[in-house]
Each structure stands twice: as C-alpha cells, then as structure tokens.
C-alpha cells in the first residue's frame, strides 16, 4: 500500500504535503502546529487547549463563528484537537471548496490577534470549564486522563501536568497570554499543512504560496523543554483512587520506546498481542477463562520524544475487588515476561494492524492527519508509506526482547480506581454478584 506524496517548503518555513486521490470529490486539509500542553508555562495548565478554542473565534477577515459557518455552508466538517505535544485543525470538504479552506487557515495563522476580545476569551473559558466537567469531573474514571501522565512522568516534566488544565489556571489566562502564545507557536515554521484527496497539486501549490507565503516566520524562541526521562520507572509506582465508580478499573503503564523508533513497533505489536480485540491474551485469559474482567484493552500514547507509554486498561467484573483485579493483571504480565509470546500471537496482531492501516487510508481526513503527524515529528511525511513494512518486520523475538527489557517490576505504574468505600455502592456490588451467579 503506497499513496502518492509530494512535499515542499515555503520560504517562511511552512512544510506542505499533498497526496492526490481522485476516487471521490473530497479533500482533507490538516494543519498541525508543533505545540501542546507540554509547552505551557507554570500556572497556565490547559492554556494550549483553551487557545485551540480561540482559533475558532474569527480572525482579521472572519467574524466570530463565521469560520464554522463558512465551512458548514461549504458542505464540510471541521474540528481541532490538542494533545501533549501538538495541536491540529482539520476540515473535510467537497473538493471544489479547497481554496476557501486554505484561505481560512491562512487568515487565522497570519491575522488572528485583531479578532481576539476579552468577551470571547471569557466565553470560551466557560465552555472549556464545561468541557472539563463533562470529560473529567462528572465522568467515572474521568480523571485518568490527568492522573496517568502525572504518575508516569516526574513533577516538572512537560507531560506531567494536566492537558485540560485546572479551573484555577484556566481562570488566570489573559489576552496577553493569547498574544504571546500566538506569536511564539502559531508560526509557519512551526506548522505542517497537509492536503489529501481530489486536488490538482499545481493548483494547490499556487494557493498555498498565495495565502500562506506572506506570513512571516516566528521571531520569539519557542519554549522547548527537555523531554528526556530514564527508559524505566526504576520501581513499581502505585496509586489507588477511591472514586464514584461502580467497578474497579486498572491502568497498568510501562515506559516504552518513543514513537517511530524500532523499539516502538515491537512495543506496539506487544500491546496488540496483549489487548487488541477479543483474540488478545488479556481478553482470552481475564474475560473468557478466568472471568475476572469485564473489558480488557491495550494502547500506546505514540509520543515521539522523552518516552512513550504502553498501557493496559482492564475493568473488573462485579464482585472482583480492586486488589484481585490488580493481582490478576500483574499475573498475566508476569506470565508473558516468563514465557514470552509466540509467532502465532505476533502474526495475529500483525494481521489486524495491517487491516487497520489500510482501513484508515480510505478517508481523506485520515490521510492528511497521518501525513501531518509524520511531517511534524520527523520532517518526513513519506514515513506513512513505510508503516506496513515496519510492522511486518517485527518478529516474536523482537517483541520478546521488548518484553524482557520493559515489562519487569522495575518499569510498572499502576493506577487503580476502586469504588469509594462509603458503604452503599460496595454493598450493592456484593448483592449483584450474588444475583448474577
């Protein structure tokens, strides 16, 4: 599976990738800025994400809410997202609207600040506080989003603090912060623009040059905090969180090789062997055979700097205590550490990953997003075309080398949620177990 990719850089540093595909009159545009919560200064947690919201509040030539309106009227979809180390903005549109979208993205990259007002900031601050309540505070297990990185990266590390931010810090954000952050990070030399789908590359090149070309390079020095951490935790980190939840749930994390490295692919295959779909080890052992878990999965954070994390995510069955869940999951990790994985397990994982990679390439938006990712992290969007081969090269012995190196007791972090022991809910669990058996 190879998709066509062409890449060029404007004089102002903007890296642009184009992937032509005329099977449907659809175009995905995806703009990555190399800035995320990792770049926030102390006392401003949540700012990168709040800033993302402000980018939808208009720019010099676009009124408030008009950005959404123009793209929806064009028959397209749009959104943005903020992660630890990057922020992206994306649209999927009928192909005859490509120029409009490029103009809109250029207008906010070049001329955002004239549209920023205190009133807009106050409203988006309230919206984000509600997003925090919705996704973290009023959601069972919702705090795992901030507790797991806090447990796995030391205090002061750029990934340690909350991405969505604290209510106090969100309240502190000012228009001055907006201006400084914009000038520092929202510059063409800190961004990648990808365009995938039904386009004429020469036409796109001309539009990109016309709209993005005049935007000057950044002048402020971006805050690029050091990311390095030791490859292992050094001990078994443990945190138990009594919370308003019905069932215990364990996140068991391991520091793992950074995204894009050889070791990453072994870690990723290991995660799939352990937790991808119902044929995986954890599902077979803990859900089907031992019946201690209701759900079991595994994932990687895909962080390209510092350290990546491989995480097992297992929810208990009713009647199984947090302690018993923890022991069962750790037991499976010990077993795989002692015996390793088989070639058959690795080929099952690789087959599923291959289907997943091809499936993702069907949509223009996904193509553009992945091109931007490889271009932002490694300067090489063409790495997208090598993913399948990288995965296919992984053998059981590669996975077992990763396991020996990273799954030991000196590299585990357990974040265990248990029902708050205030009587009522714990008793209900006992009754339900009796009723179910």
């Amino acid at each position, binding site marked *: 599976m190879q998709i066509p990719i062409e890449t060029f850089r404007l004089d102002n540093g903007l890296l642009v990738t184009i992937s032509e595909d005329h*099977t*449907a*009159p*659809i175009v995905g545009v995806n703009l990555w800025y190399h800035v995320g919560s990792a770049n926030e200064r102390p006392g401003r947690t949540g700012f990168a994400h709040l800033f993302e919201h402000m980018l939808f509040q208009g720019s*010099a*030539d676009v009124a408030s809410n008009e950005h*959404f309106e123009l793209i*929806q*009227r*064009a*028959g*397209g*979809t749009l959104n943005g997202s903020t992660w630890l180390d990057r922020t992206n903005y994306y649209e999927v*549109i009928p192909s*005859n*609207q490509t120029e*409009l979208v490029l*103009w809109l993205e250029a207008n906010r990259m*070049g*001329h955002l600040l004239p549209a920023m007002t205190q009133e807009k900031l*106050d*409203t988006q601050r*309230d*919206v984000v506080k*509600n997003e925090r*309540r*919705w996704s973290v505070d*009023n*959601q*069972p297990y919702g705090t795992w989003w901030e507790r797991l990185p806090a447990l796995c990266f030391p205090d002061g590390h750029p990934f340690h603090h909350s991405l969505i931010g604290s209510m106090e810090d969100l309240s502190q954000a000012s228009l001055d912060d907006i201006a400084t952050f914009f000038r520092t990070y929202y510059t063409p030399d800190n961004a990648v623009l990808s365009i995938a789908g039904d386009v004429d590359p020469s036409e796109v090149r001309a539009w990109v040059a*016309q*709209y993005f070309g*005049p935007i*000057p390079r950044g002048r402020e020095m971006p805050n690029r905090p050091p990311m390095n951490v030791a490859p292992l935790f050094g001990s078994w980190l443990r945190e138990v969180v009594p919370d*308003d939840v*019905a*069932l215990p749930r364990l996140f068991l994390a391991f520091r793992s090789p950074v995204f894009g490295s050889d070791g990453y692919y072994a870690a990723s295959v290991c995660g799939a062997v352990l937790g991808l*779909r*119902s*044929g995986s080890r954890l599902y*077979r052992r803990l*859900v*089907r055979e031992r*019946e201690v878990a*209701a759900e079991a999965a595994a994932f990687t954070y895909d962080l390209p700097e510092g350290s990546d994390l491989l995480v097992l995510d297992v929810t208990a*069955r*009713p009647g199984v205590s947090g302690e018993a869940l923890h022991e069962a999951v750790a037991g499976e990790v010990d077993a795989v550490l002692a015996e390793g994985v088989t070639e058959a397990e690795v*080929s*099952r994982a690789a*087959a*599923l990953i*291959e*289907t*997943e990679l*091809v499936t993702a390439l*069907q*949509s223009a938006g996904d193509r553009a997003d992945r091109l931007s990712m490889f271009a932002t992290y490694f300067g090489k969007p063409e790495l997208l075309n090598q993913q399948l081969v990288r995965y296919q090269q992984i053998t059981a012995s590669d996975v077992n080398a990763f396991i020996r190196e990273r799954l030991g007791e000196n590299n585990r972090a357990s974040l265990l949620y248990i029902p708050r022991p205030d009587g009522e809910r714990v008793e*209900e669990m006992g009754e*339900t177990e009796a*009723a179910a058996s």
Partner: protein
Amino acid sequence: MSTTHIARPAAGLPRPYHFPEFLRRRIAGGLDVITAPVRKLPLVSVVALVDAGAMRDPAGREGLAVLTAKMLLEGTRERDGAALADAFERLGATVDVSAGWDAAALHLTVLRGNADAAMRLLSEVVRDPGFRERDLARLKAERVAQRMQMRTEPRELADESFERFLYDSTSRYARPDAGSARTVNALTHDDVLNFYHAHYVPARTTLIIVGDLDHEAGATMAEETFGGWAGSPGAPSAAPTRAAAPERRVQIVAKTDAPQSELRIGHVGVPRSHPDHFPLVVMNAVLGGLFTSRINLNLRERHGYAYGARSAFEWRRGMGPFVVSTAVESGVTADATREVVAEIEAFRKAPITDEELSLATSYLEGIFPIRYETTAAIASALTALVTYDLPADYFDTYRRKIAAVSSGDVLRVANEHLHPEQLLILAVGDPAVIEAPLARLKLGTIAVAPAEEIEPGT
C-alpha cells in the same frame, strides 16, 4: 505583520459524485444479497443484517434479542469463542456484532485476499452457533456489570432515564434495548435457542457485500458461503410504543454533588417512514443539528453554559424520541432549560431565514459524499435501506430532496412535529442545586427520582 487582506475565494465547479452503484438479488433459500463494488483499496466490508432487533423481544424477556446477537460471536459448534476470535483475527478480519431496536447485525471488514475465508467463518457464525451455557452466563454477568456502570455514568443514565419517563410503562421503548439486570438474569438457554430459530432465517436476513470485488464475485461469494441455508421464520412480534401522559413536566434524576447537569429535553417523535422526513432533517439541522444551529450557538457561544448542545430525531421504525441533549454547569441548569424551551417555541412562530435554510441544505448536500468514504460506512448505509424499507433510489435522490425543502416546509413541520407543551425536561444532577431554580420556571410538575430507581431489582 503583513495585513494584505485578500478577498475570500469563491467555490470552484463541483465535481460529480454518485453513491456506489449496488445490486440487490435473492439467492436460493431466500436470502437477500446486496453487492456494491468499491475498488479504491483492497478491502471488503460485509454486513449480515437480521430483522431481529430488540423490538422482537417477547414480553418479559427484554434483552433477549441483544443477548442472542452477542452470543453469535461466542463460538460455533465447531469452535469455541477463543478459537473463533483467533480464526477471524489471524485473517486480519475485524468482526463485531451490534443489535439495536430494529435489527441485529454482524459487521466484518477484511483485506480482499482473505475475504473468502472470512466469509466462510461468518457463515459458520450465523448458521451454526455454539450457544454454550458458560458463555451465556458470562454475557449475562457482563450485562449486569454494564448496568452497574451506568448508574455512575451521567450521560448514559440521562439517555436511558429520558426514554423511561418519556414512554408509557407498557411501551418497549421505556425499557433499555439490551434489557435490565433483572430481565437478563432471567433469560435461559432455551430462550436464546428459540429466539435464534424464529428470527435467524434466510427470509429475515440480508447480506451486504461492499468493496474490492464486482457484483458477480460478490454474489458467488454469497452463494458459496450462505447457499443452502434453510429455516422458516416464526411469527414476527412487534412490541408496542406509546407516549406517557403528554403534558410538560420536569423530572430530576438525583446525582448528589454533580458539578454538571446532564439535560435531555424533548418528546415523542415520528417514525423513520414519515413522509415529512426530509423537511424534519433540515429543520433539525437549523434547530440543533449543526454546530452553527440555534441551540448550540445560544448555549455554547452566547452564554458559555455548555461544551455543546444538540438536538436529534432518533430514527426508528416506531416513534423514536426527539431530544435536545446537553451538559451544563449545575448552577445554570434552569437558565439553560429556559433557553432550550424558548428556542423550540420560537421555531414554530416564524419561518427560518433564507440564510439559515441555505446553510442547512448546502451542508447536508455537501457532506453527503463525505459520509461514505469507507466500505464499512457504505455497508452501514445500505443496512438503513433494508431496515427502513427505503426506495432503491434513496441515495441517488437524497441531495435533490434536501435541496427542495423550503422555509415554508420547515415552518409547517415545526408546527406539526415540535410540541413545546408536551416536553419532558429531564436532568441528571444535584437536586439541592437545581430543583428550586427549575421549579421557578413553572414549566410543569416537578419530580425527583434516585438514580437507583432507574434499575429496579438489581
């Protein structure tokens, strides 16, 4: 910074788009097969769609349809669940089961080279299930676990409570599609077997094959794997759907100390087959379907009450709900409620503007191709065609019918199908904070139920 403002570019000429051409035929044994060649990538998606949704549950056995569907992936007579999962996954095939109100479906996606082998497995799953006692007990326990989880999950609790209080207690929609802990615990191996034999038969099944193969290859694949399948359907049953007393009222489901209230505001809607479907789709887009809709702009961008707010008609064969959904800071629950009710009332009084109409219709026309970029999405779209008995030219005429909707049509359907005087206003939140302000709105009677009441008998 340079401030050379360049005029906004105009749209170019649109390039044509056609929903993939599909063919529907009946093979020996009575099974319907739909094939849709999509040759972009070497992928095939297959859906085995069975008319065996939760509306077919026998009275008192709520949850049987969903449980039966889930049991299919727990093993065949030849292979147990673990061996079956392994067989699919070694082919790189993803297979999932879903069952809702109106249908059950197995969804398969696989690379073209492994499609024949994966189809043989799929056929084994549908035609020769294992239904082992141990798996049945485990799935029942998993459903109990889900029910416990729901009580602490405000969004699901709100969705489910809304329907429970919206429909009359004799209505199937008043009870969860996958059953309560009590009804699921009572289900037996015989129940599953009987339901399977009555509903999983060729005459109630459609096989939808989308992807990198032509019509003939698709039909051959269907015949080679599902040919010779026999079985006669039992009598179809249809559970009743009826609204509870249709007067405006407020129902709080208590979640003490909740920082947010999950709000659901709405009433009983119309069936998918209603002739006003297209004007209702456009109406809903303007009211609460789009980011730029009136309700979202009001609650999110004007007041900052919520992260987002949306309205939707839940399309079902029966009268599914019309509902506005949002989550607001507890302290503004009554303010947000007032705004939503006012937006619904305003919609019936004056026609929407030309700007609003053209935004909604051009959006709906424009995103039509974007919805169908993947083989799995195309296969899912074809399931709607079968389940709701839509005309064969449905996809070819969709954009034309959307474009034909006028603001007069929207005003007419708003008056016919929006009922502000019948709204159920449901909030999952902290009664100590939200009850008094909601009462001051004087919208109707107000009642408070503990969350535990949503799942009696657990």
